[in-house]
């Protein structure tokens, strides 16, 4: 690790100014991914600006049933929040399925959104990686890519986004709140927050230098909604997703799907919103065959690799099962 200057920001203005000034300055919140990457030499900041004392640590429940989650709220606090557990159980489940108890106590909501891929080549500075070092090539396509994406990939990069939390938030129509360098606020849907890798896999979000995530807002969930987060992984705990599915489902009186939102993890280069599957299912009866077809349609554009092609069928099965169980009154 290279030496760095450390500053503890006392106001958002200071923090933003410091970071906007240089591509070599970074915000430090929980640090569970940043410190990891600094040790690996993947990220080599000259200045680390500690933002943990900034005032973005509240969970505000809105009268309409929505919630504004401060960017510095830890995963464990968020998952422990009674209102979140009551109204957004899939978010609590997603958080609790990720990382470990002692990582969640410090990992923040904002930092979780900005987690970097766990692609083994991205993390190994002795090997080519377009995301880490643009133009060097992708080692994963012909190498180990079992954990990597089938959706949203490009020739340059197949890295999967590792977050569980963001997958649930994608399905919950989350809105990311930012503070621009000039102090102006900006809000954008989480589903517009992430970029596809294309030819520039090093660019992962729409954030501009100095932009500070201040919080994430979840709109009130639709009336009568049921939701769940299902995760398939290689261990029963403390492992990244092979496939995960956040399902948010509301059924009409006639048994048709009034509202369905699906977030997918482990399969996409970003937390994946399954719009095509949703489109095919909305207003329809959730038959086994219909669910399966819709799920399969979501993967029509998938680019599977030999080591991760299994994820498509797996995801189809998990989507089908998750929605079927929710409609049938079974959440988990």
């Amino acid at each position: 690790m290279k030496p760095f200057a450390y500053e503890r920001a006392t106001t958002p203005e200071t923090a933003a100014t410091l970071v906007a000034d240089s591509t070599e300055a970074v915000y430090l919140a929980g640090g569970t991914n940043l410190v990891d990457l600094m040790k690996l030499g993947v990220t080599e900041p000259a200045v680390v600006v500690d933002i943990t004392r900034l005032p973005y640590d509240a969970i505000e429940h809105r009268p309409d049933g929505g919630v504004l989650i401060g960017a510095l709220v830890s995963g464990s606090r968020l998952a422990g929040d009674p209102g979140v557990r009551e109204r957004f159980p899939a978010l609590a489940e997603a958080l609790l399925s990720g990382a470990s108890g002692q990582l969640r106590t410090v990992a923040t909501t904002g930092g979780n959104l900005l987690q970097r891929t766990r692609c083994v080549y991205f993390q190994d500075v002795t090997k080519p990686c377009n995301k880490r070092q643009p133009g060097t090539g992708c080692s994963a396509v012909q190498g180990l890519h079992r954990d990597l994406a089938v959706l949203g990939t490009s020739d340059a990069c197949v890295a999967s986004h590792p977050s569980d939390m963001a997958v649930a938030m994608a399905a919950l129509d989350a809105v990311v709140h930012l503070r621009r360098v000039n102090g102006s606020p900006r809000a954008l849907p989480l589903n517009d927050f992430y970029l596809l890798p294309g030819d520039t896999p090093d660019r992962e979000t729409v954030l501009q230098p100095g932009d500070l995530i201040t919080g994430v807002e979840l709109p009130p969930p639709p009336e009568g909604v049921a939701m769940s987060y299902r995760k398939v992984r290689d261990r029963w705990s403390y492992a990244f997703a092979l496939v995960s599915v956040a399902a948010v489902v509301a059924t009409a009186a006639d048994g048709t799907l009034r509202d369905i939102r699906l977030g997918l993890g482990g399969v996409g280069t970003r937390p994946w919103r399954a719009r095509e599957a949703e489109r095919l299912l909305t207003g329809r009866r959730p038959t086994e065959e219909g669910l399966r077809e819709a799920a399969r349609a979501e993967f029509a554009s998938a680019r599977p690799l030999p080591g991760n092609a299994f994820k498509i069928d797996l995801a189809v099965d998990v989507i089908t099962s998750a929605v079927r169980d929710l409609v049938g009154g079974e959440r988990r």
Partner: protein
Amino acid sequence: MRGARPGARLSDVTAHAFHSDLTLRVNGADRALTLDHRVTLLDALREHLALTGVKKGCDHGQCGACTVLIDGERVNSCLVFAVAAQGRDITTIEGVAGLAAPEELHPLQRAFLEHDGFQCGYCTPGQICSAIGALTEAARGWPSHVTEDMAAGVGAPADLDAEEIRERMSGNLCRCGAYPGIVAAIREAAGGDGGGAPARAGAGGGVR
């Protein structure tokens, strides 16, 4: 170390040294240090404060051996820069007995001994600190990934069954495979009914 003044510019910062004078509050005592900013809390404790009960297993948050308590919450000390831990209350394995004063050992330490919740002992301090944190979380009613009803959460720590403890303790790897003893020890210390006779969980026994 100083807080950046409003209006500070990068040029001000880069002129700063790569180290700071700082004070860490560890096991109830203030410890003054001058540290390179790269020094993690884990290395500060082990290398600079001789608190070697804290263990380095992976240095990347992938094993839990370095778990300490910060303001009562369990944390991987390998992923926290020491300079960022100023102003926090840090408790290591060397200080956990003090949490249960005037006992000589914390009830979890005693339970780990009784249930043989370790073999090589290297993950043990992290397991014990993590268990303290986990039981604190349970006391707040916080659910885990295996909790049946997210909204309802859990009752008292004593209500945690083995399944709950296994999930909550999965951030602490044990290569010796002492998990059955670890779970039994924590259940007993939590006041649950899983403790029973020492080393009962999966205990062996001679038969003729």
